[in-house]
């Protein structure tokens, strides 16, 4: 084993500026971290440290507590530079010290209590601060403590991923010093460092409080090594507080302190860790008796998916008007910090630029800094240290001016849309016209439009908070588009995820080794690894857990390669919520990939592919003829498409747009996507032979995804529902299925599955695979025919005409049979006389009609399915699109009483 370390660059962070809200909340940033690269020998690409940190960082976004600064984002810049965005306040404990005044004992107690609350909360989540210092303890507008930089130690894997020490010399606890730096330059004691425990923070806090009490900094103006030596030697002293006071000439100040403060200081500044209390111990200590009762403990808000009542703690003031008071029109300030940051980015915010302007990113020209010599394992020597690679611990405040300016025309109502009044959704805002203009623009542009996104985000946020009550409404809005910020939850809503998913996920055993582990282990490092999140070690870990959870909880199904790709979009969207990723995946698979993951899935896949090739013939006979001719059948290329629902072939950002629509459609929508992809490559496919096609598809060329979505929706509208009937599709849900009761989704023509419709005699009947394969064109059910031809059994018209394919029924029975009764509106082309020996249609009046209605859905009706299928095949051969046959033939129609006898003149 060897770890070659190379210094490359660092990381740092920025924050966003003041909401100019009364509590002076601000987003800030900047921690510059120096990263090292490490190599490993396992043949896999090595993961840059910046990606490791980025992966570990994600968890911090979920750590919300009023005493901690909220982390918002991290971005990776060039040369391993990381910028962290977090909440920030301008005031810190430093301010007290600068003024050189002491702080009143009550205030000290309150600060101590606040800080301990924050620390305790972090400890509960398995983190320690390690970098406490006067300038990291911020004060919000109400004078309450906010701990900043609390995630540094966590995100750097206890300092292992960066080469600067974490913490500030004066505040380091003795045991931290004794354990040494993570990266001793002689590298001999190396990696066997235990991470620091929570008690080190208590020492640092003690030093901080001491400084507050005496009104000056400790150990200022001495060299670092002397400082550390001093701290270490405190171990021999009996009374550390007194020694410190003597050393700094402030014994009097200490003597005057009230007793409880002195006790607190002594407890914090206990040399031996085993005698020092933890933050949790201190919080219940009697010294805080007077303080703790003043504040109610923080309660974690209830998440959307949980078993407890979300409104359980909701208390409305007696006079509801009080809620509306004190609003100073800063609606933006009431949105959550990550929404604001998202909008800030959309409004042209650029972290790198912000930092460059402040002169924080300065780097030497690269030609001046290459190393002189590199060993075979990649260790570099002779490289000068570039200053820009040092930790820059400054915080830059990001200005919200630009964003506010962008949004100045957005009316207040837009921030609080009324959901109950259907009419009011978009119509009340002043900029209605603008918005309706915007919503007709391409999706990519809409996703970058600040105002539009603001309104969409606000709307979705409210709708999702009202989920599942507002499920129908979510569906409706999702048809317009889904704002990227809300996509994770919106998809969950579309998939109908409900219930206490976390508890369900927790009970699944994700640790015990199973035989599939090996395959999962092999697949994960090859799955969407261009993405920073998914390629981070944290990402891999989460991947493994979600996949294992799925495999374990679906004993009848197995892991097929491709499941990893399928998991990727869900994991990416819900990176901090594995349970939701798991729940979405578990809901997605039965809907779109029912039984695809059976151990023996060949019958399912074969049927699927056969239906797919029928769909190609239906929509594009020309292409279908060519592909069949050269033998380029779907089995050769389409299995990964459908098995992974295209996640294996597209990058994530395209999958999101594709799936936004896919999730709205039913389980036959993927066929249309497949056909749309083929059509985009149509010219090249038609021009090429088998080998070139194989090569072309071995690495799918760039696909214009927006066009693909548009085309597939279009194709979908032209496809009669029953044409994609599959015997192995998901069986209809049992009646009384909870999720569909009450506020069920709207059953529109397009979103319901064919399988979900009530079955009747007129529905399609299962067909053996070999029979299915023999037919080029799809069959449609009599039901569909009746529906599409507007034939009515009763008197009422069920649906308006719009939005349904136009249809032409072709009866190929003999003239006599036709005369005895046929479907009204159908034309008669007897099979026996229809085609000339060379396969062309014989010219006659009926074929003329056929010709003139080319492009409509053609339904072939016959006595026997065999002749209908043959006729359809002939039509496809001569490039008639949208040819179908009637399942069961004319016999199916007879009992309906819809056949008519022609009037004499025809």
């Amino acid at each position, binding site marked *: *084993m*060897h*770890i070659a370390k190379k210094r490359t660059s660092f990381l740092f962070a920025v924050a966003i500026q003041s909401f100019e809200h009364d509590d002076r909340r601000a987003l800030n940033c900047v921690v*510059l971290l*120096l990263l090292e690269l*490490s190599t490993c*020998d396992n043949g896999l690409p090595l993961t840059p440290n910046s*990606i490791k940190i980025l992966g570990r960082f994600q968890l911090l976004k979920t750590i919300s507590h009023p005493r901690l600064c909220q982390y918002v984002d991290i971005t990776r810049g*060039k040369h391993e530079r990381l910028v962290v965005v977090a909440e920030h306040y301008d005031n810190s404990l430093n301010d007290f010290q600068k003024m050189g005044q002491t702080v009143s004992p009550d205030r000290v107690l309150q600060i101590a209590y606040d800080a301990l609350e924050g620390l305790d909360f972090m400890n509960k989540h398995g983190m320690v601060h390690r970098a406490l210092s006067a300038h990291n303890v911020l004060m919000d507008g109400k004078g309450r403590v906010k701990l900043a930089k609390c995630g540094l130690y966590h995100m750097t894997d206890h300092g292992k991923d960066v080469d*600067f*020490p974490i913490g500030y010399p004066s505040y380091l606890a003795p*045991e931290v*010093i*004794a*354990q*040494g*730096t993570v*990266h001793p*330059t*002689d590298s001999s004691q190396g*990696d*066997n460092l*235990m991470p*620091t*425990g*929570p008690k080190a923070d208590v020492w640092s806090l003690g030093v901080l409080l001491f400084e507050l009490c005496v009104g000056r900094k400790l150990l200022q103006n001495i*060299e*670092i*090594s002397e400082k*550390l*030596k001093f701290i*270490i030697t405190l171990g021999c002293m009996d009374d550390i507080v007194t020694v410190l006071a003597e050393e700094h000439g402030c014994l009097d100040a200490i003597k005057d302190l009230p007793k409880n403060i002195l006790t607190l200081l002594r407890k914090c500044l206990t040399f*031996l*860790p*085993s005698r020092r209390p933890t933050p949790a111990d201190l919080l219940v200590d009697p010294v805080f008796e007077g303080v703790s009762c003043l504040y109610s403990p923080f309660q974690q808000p209830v998440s959307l998916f949980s078993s407890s009542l979300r409104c359980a703690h909701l208390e409305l003031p007696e006079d509801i008007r009080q809620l509306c008071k004190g609003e100073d029109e800063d609606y933006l300030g009431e949105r959550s910090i990550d929404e604001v940051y998202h909008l800030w980015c959309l409004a042209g915010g650029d972290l790198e630029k912000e930092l460059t302007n402040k002169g924080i990113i300065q780097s*030497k*020209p*690269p*030609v*001046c*800094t*290459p*190393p*002189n*010599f*590199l*060993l*075979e394992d990649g260790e570099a*020597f*002779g490289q000068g240290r570039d*200053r820009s690679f*040092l*930790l820059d611990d400054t915080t830059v405040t990001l200005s919200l001016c630009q964003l506010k300016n962008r949004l100045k025309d957005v009316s207040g109502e837009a921030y609080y849309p009324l959901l109950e009044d259907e009419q009011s959704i978009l119509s009340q805002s002043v900029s209605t016209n603008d918005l309706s203009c915007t919503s007709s623009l391409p999706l990519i542009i809409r996703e970058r439009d600040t105002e539009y996104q603001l309104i969409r985000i606000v709307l979705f946020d409210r709708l999702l908070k009202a989920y599942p009550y507002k499920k129908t409404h979510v569906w409706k809005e999702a048809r317009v588009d889904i704002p990227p910020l809300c996509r994770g939850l919106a998809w969950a809503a579309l998939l109908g995820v409900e219930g206490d998913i976390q508890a369900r996920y927790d*009970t699944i055993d994700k*640790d*015990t080794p199973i035989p599939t582990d090996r395959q999962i282990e092999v697949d994960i490092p090859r799955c969407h690894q261009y993405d920073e999140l998914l*390629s981070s070690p944290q990402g891999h870990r989460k991947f493994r857990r979600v996949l294992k959870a799925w495999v374990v909880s679906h004993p009848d199904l197995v892991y097929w390669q491709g499941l990893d790709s399928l998991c990727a979009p869900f994991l990416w969207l819900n990176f901090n919520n594995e349970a939701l990723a798991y729940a979405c995946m578990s809901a997605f698979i039965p809907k779109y990939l029912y039984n695809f993951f059976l151990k023996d899935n060949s019958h399912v896949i074969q049927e699927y592919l056969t239906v797919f090739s029928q769909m190609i013939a239906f929509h594009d006979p020309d292409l279908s003829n060519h592909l069949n001719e050269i033998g380029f059948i779907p089995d050769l290329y389409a299995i990964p498409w459908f098995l992974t629902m295209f996640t294996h072939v*597209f990058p*994530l950002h395209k999958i999101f747009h594709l799936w936004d629509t896919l999730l709205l459609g039913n389980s036959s929508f993927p066929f249309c996507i497949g056909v749309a992809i083929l059509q985009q490559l149509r010219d*090249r496919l038609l021009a090429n032979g088998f080998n070139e096609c194989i090569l072309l598809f071995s690495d799918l060329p760039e696909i214009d995804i927006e066009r693909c979505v548009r085309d597939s929706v279009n194709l979908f509208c032209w496809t009669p529902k029953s044409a994609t009937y599959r015997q192995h599709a998901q069986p209809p849900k049992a009646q009384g299925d909870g999720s569909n009761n009450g506020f069920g989704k709207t059953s529109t023509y397009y979103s319901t599955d064919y399988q979900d419709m009530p079955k009747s005699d007129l529905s399609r009947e299962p067909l053996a695979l070999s029979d299915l394969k023999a037919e080029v064109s799809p069959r449609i059910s009599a039901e569909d025919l009746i529906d599409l031809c507007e034939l009515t059994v009763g008197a009422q018209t069920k649906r308006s005409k719009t939005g349904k394919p136009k249809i032409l029924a072709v009866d190929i029975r003999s003239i006599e049979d036709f005369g005895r009764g046929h479907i009204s509106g159908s034309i008669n082309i007897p099979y026996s006389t229809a085609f000339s020996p060379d396969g062309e249609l014989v010219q006659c009046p009926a074929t003329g009609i056929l010709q003139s209605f080319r492009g409509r859905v053609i339904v072939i009706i016959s006595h026997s399915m065999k002749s209908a299928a043959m006729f359809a095949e002939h039509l496809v051969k001569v490039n008639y699109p949208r040819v179908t046959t009637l399942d069961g033939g004319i016999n199916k129609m007879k009992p309906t009483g819809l056949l008519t006898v022609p009037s004499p003149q025809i």
Partner: protein
Amino acid sequence: MKKNKGKINVTTEKEFVFKFKAGKSDCILNVPLQFPVQENVTDLHGRLMLLHKIPCFVENELKSTLSSFIERETIQDYDREAELALQRLTDGEVDINQLTNTWAKAYAETTLEHARPEEPSWDEDFADVYHELIHSSASDTLLNLEHNYFVSISELISERDMELKKLQERQAAEMDKVMQELGKSMTDHDVNAVASQHFDAQQVLENKWANELKHVTHIQKQEYQQWVIKLHQDMQNPNSTINEEIKVQPSQRTEESEQGARLYEEQQQLEESFTIHLGAQLKTMHNLRLVRADVLDFCKHRRHGSSGTKLRRLQTALSLYSSSLCGLVLLVDNRVNSYSGIKRDFATVSKECTDFHFPRLEEQLDVVQQVVLYARAHRSSKHKDQLEAPRNGCSNEDKNKNLERNSSNILPGEFYISRHSNLSEVHIVFHLCVDDNVRSGNITARDPAIMGLRNILKVCCTHDVTTITIPLLLVHDMSEEMTIPWCLKRAELVFKCVKGFMMEMASWDGGISRTVQFLVPQSISEEMFYQLSNMLPQIFRVSSTLTLTSKH
């Protein structure tokens, strides 16, 4: 090999005991737990519930007991560990001074707050000034000046060549005379004496010229830098109009013949370009070029002020301090010098023109030599530390023996880097060490030379080298054993490895588009060249042309 192998992982097992009542019976659950606990407490809890079929009415109780147990034990572990560390200090196992110095050093080296303020560096200031000037209207003047210096150096060189030639002719004549007299008035001994005398004379003359050249380049560099600084100052002062135009001095020498030769050479050069896509889902675009040329063609300047030359020169100058550099891989032997073979040829080319920005090649190599010695010392001390954990394989041992023999030599797969501002198309040269092994037919993807390429690409990534030229066959000259199958096999290996490395680099730099030029020796046949250019699109995914069709 796992990264953490060397870790003395102190995991301890502790027994978690949980008692509960189910109906009338008392149940006890004993679970051995590994500390430090790696997994999530809720996961562990879920697993225990499942595994031991714990009734659900104790679920919450189990959870809280379990988490408080783990919390307590973890704190105890922390405390024990921390006090051990403190104990080591009081026992004197660890020296307190050394410890605190390490800390202080770590702070000083890695944080801006504690770092020593940076001393202003002449190089960087000059870099800024130059970068600004070359991107201003003054660029023309600068280039002309550079060209004039170049011309005077070339004249000096041709004078030197002339004088050397004369000397050689004179000596040859003298030698002839002596040889005729051999056996008559002269003995073998006399001949030897004359020969060594000639040799000495040559050496003296060469040294004289070398010193002369060195002197002139030194003066040129100084003058140039002063002039650039002055020009910059003048430019900043809007009142002074300086435009002392510098005209291109026409070179005195007639170069008709050379022009012809050059023309001929350029015809010899074959090249083919490809645009490729890398990546399974997210695709990044890169440019590849297959070139048949001499490796030094990328370094040599064309001798005369033809416009093409100047453009190329401008391009190189513009990007010198930018973030798109050009690199070249030069295959060298295991000694860091410039006495023989391609190294000597390269050194000659690098002297053809003064480097106004970076130290002369000899100086750079001297520094490299120092760094190599340092690196060896560093490695061997580290190696000693790791002796307790024996590293795999005896190959390392062999290597180390080799090293001990001559620690100033470098090993295959290692490379050193030199920087140049005076070469025609290259800023950074990677001198990659290869041995005779690359001539054999059976090298693999794990070969040191290939690993060297990987590291080179990584440096390209971290130092913004966006164009890199790689000898495709890992040789600069063809020899007899390099048959057609040999070439094809080698080319395939290098193509595939480079493709893999490029994909790997995409995760480092976020998929910046680069240009990779594959260089094949001038001596391969045209037919071979086209065979190689046919192979390339089979290995890399060549992006297909966009066909614009009108929609009917």
